[in-house]
């Protein structure tokens, strides 16, 4: 791993040594599909050439207000759910939660959004990894779908585990490629295992060469505790996508930092993807 300076700039080094060039662009909502209960899957237009450069784990910052309004003031980050370079589009999965997401999830088709991106680093699949385990909690499903697409295209095996409150809030199988093994857990037991998605993890740890997780912070806590007894010498490695309140998305405000073994890092540029063992939780 490249040792990163705590106040690193995007242009000089960028995430993992790659120069990241974000842009502020207008994006049209091309389609809105209800999914996972009250969430919305938005299909958005991209500037020519951008779709192919997007990497799984990256996110975009969306301005969730109309021109002339100051509320909510700051952009909201959303992970890229899927990108398609043929149609030059990307998809975002938005769960209506507070003001920003409720506004965004209820926009009609043809709305023009002000988007800043792509931002952040990406999940890293080791060249020798054959078996990948995805662990998704709620809308944390988003970046792991894109990662699954990429992994399958490279001929790897993927098991995708997802947890949600109930059956309705799970990502329907139709959104995942057919050759993925899909395991689910629900809080109320309405589908799959009753309990946490992390309860399903231990049985896959010997199979998996790498684990990728995205979800709320409590999910990471239980992931750490259920996996500790089953991981030998820190293997398999676990990468997580962390969530912090963000303002600039560009490494300038230092509002979104994550404390790591390499010092304070900006989760918008040097994250949001971290090796779980390098974060000071």
């Amino acid at each position, binding site marked *: 791993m490249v040792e990163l300076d*705590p106040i690193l700039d995007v242009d000089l080094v960028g995430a993992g040594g790659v120069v990241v060039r*974000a842009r502020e662009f207008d994006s049209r909502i091309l389609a809105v599909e209800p999914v996972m209960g009250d969430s919305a899957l938005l299909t958005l237009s991209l500037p020519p050439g951008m779709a192919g450069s997007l990497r799984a784990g990256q996110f975009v910052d969306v*301005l969730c207000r109309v021109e002339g309004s100051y509320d909510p*003031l700051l952009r909201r980050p959303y992970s890229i759910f899927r990108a398609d370079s043929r149609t030059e589009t990307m998809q975002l999965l938005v769960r209506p939660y507070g003001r920003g997401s409720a506004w965004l999830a209820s926009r009609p088709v043809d709305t023009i959004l002000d988007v800043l991106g792509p931002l952040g680093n990406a999940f890293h699949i080791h060249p020798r990894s054959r078996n990948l385990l995805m662990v998704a909690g709620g809308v944390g499903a988003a970046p792991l779908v894109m990662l699954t697409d990429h992994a399958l295209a490279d001929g790897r095996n993927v098991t995708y585990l997802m947890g949600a409150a109930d059956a309705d809030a799970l990502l329907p199988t139709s959104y995942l490629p057919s050759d993925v093994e899909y395991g689910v857990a629900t809080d109320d037991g309405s589908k799959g295992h009753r309990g946490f998605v992390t309860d399903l993890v231990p049985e896959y740890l010997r199979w998996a060469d790498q684990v990728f997780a995205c979800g709320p912070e409590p999910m990471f806590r239980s992931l750490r505790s259920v996996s500790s007894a089953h991981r030998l010498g820190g293997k398999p490695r676990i990468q997580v996508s962390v969530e912090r*309140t963000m303002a*600039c998305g560009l490494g300038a*405000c230092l509002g979104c930092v994550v404390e790591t073994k390499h010092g304070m890092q900006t989760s918008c540029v040097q994250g949001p993807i971290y090796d779980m063992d390098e974060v000071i939780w």
Partner: protein
Amino acid sequence: MAAPSLAVDLAPGNPRELVLANPVIAASGCFGYGLEYAGVMDVQRLGAFVSKGITPKPRSGNRMPRITETPAGMLNAIGLQNPGIRGFVKKYPKIWDAWKVPAIVNISAESVEDYAMMARILDELPGVAGIEVNISCPNIAAGGYCFGWDAAMSADVTRAVRAATTLPMMVKLSPGAVDVVSVALAVEDAGADAVSMINTLVGMAIDVRTRRPVLANATGGLSGPAVKPIALRMVYQVAAAVQIPVVGMGGIMGLDDALEFFFAGASAVQVGTAVFAQPGMLIRLIDDLGEWLSSQGVGSVQEIVGAALPAGLPSRRAATEADVEIDFAAAVAAG
């Protein structure tokens, strides 16, 4: 008609001058070290930018959460995370030296001596166009009372920095001052080339579910449109009193907000929080300002500065009175 002039000198009394191509400046703490935004906008077109606050020693900043959104604003308690003056000097000025845009270094310290020490280091450093002295810091020698709340303490810092460097120096006033006008007059008297204002207002937010403050630091600095009326009032009061340029900021989101600050007496403006939401707005603001001046038939942005002040800008007033006297003398001689 020729394109209107947007240029401004923020240190007219200083031979090292601080001439900006336009009066739009990216504010401290909101623009990193300039590099962060270089990929998303043409940083070189700015009038200037101000660096994140630099301190004598490296600081890792406050615990998380450090920011939270509030109605039309945000609270931040970053805790001045920065590499310290020595780490800073090694990294950034040499990059800026090749840039066209003037880079202003914001300095923060907890003792008068530390402010002066940093100013001495910056004095002859290529790539550094000026200093902004952030006096919204606790003075350890005064039991942690904020320098910027007190005119005498603010003047002490200003005097020490002035003695340590001939660089153009802007002193950034705190809105927490008991009497911001007396602080402004004191720092002017102590050698500041300009004042910038306002820094954030101390505020807080409480999470109703946890019943605890949202920010780990409990309190934070409020910025954004929510603070604009207060900032404007303070600029108006200070601009009516001092002779040196006033740089206004606090909640500027676009042209109309910036115009209000110019009319209140600001010779230039800084923009912070708005840049987080829309990085492109800085360049749009410069363009919009030029177009607006043309549409109004105004030849220079400096002509509109202080338009809302009942008696105009004091510096202009003094010039006019002097002109009248000379004219009078000339008339007598001629007669």
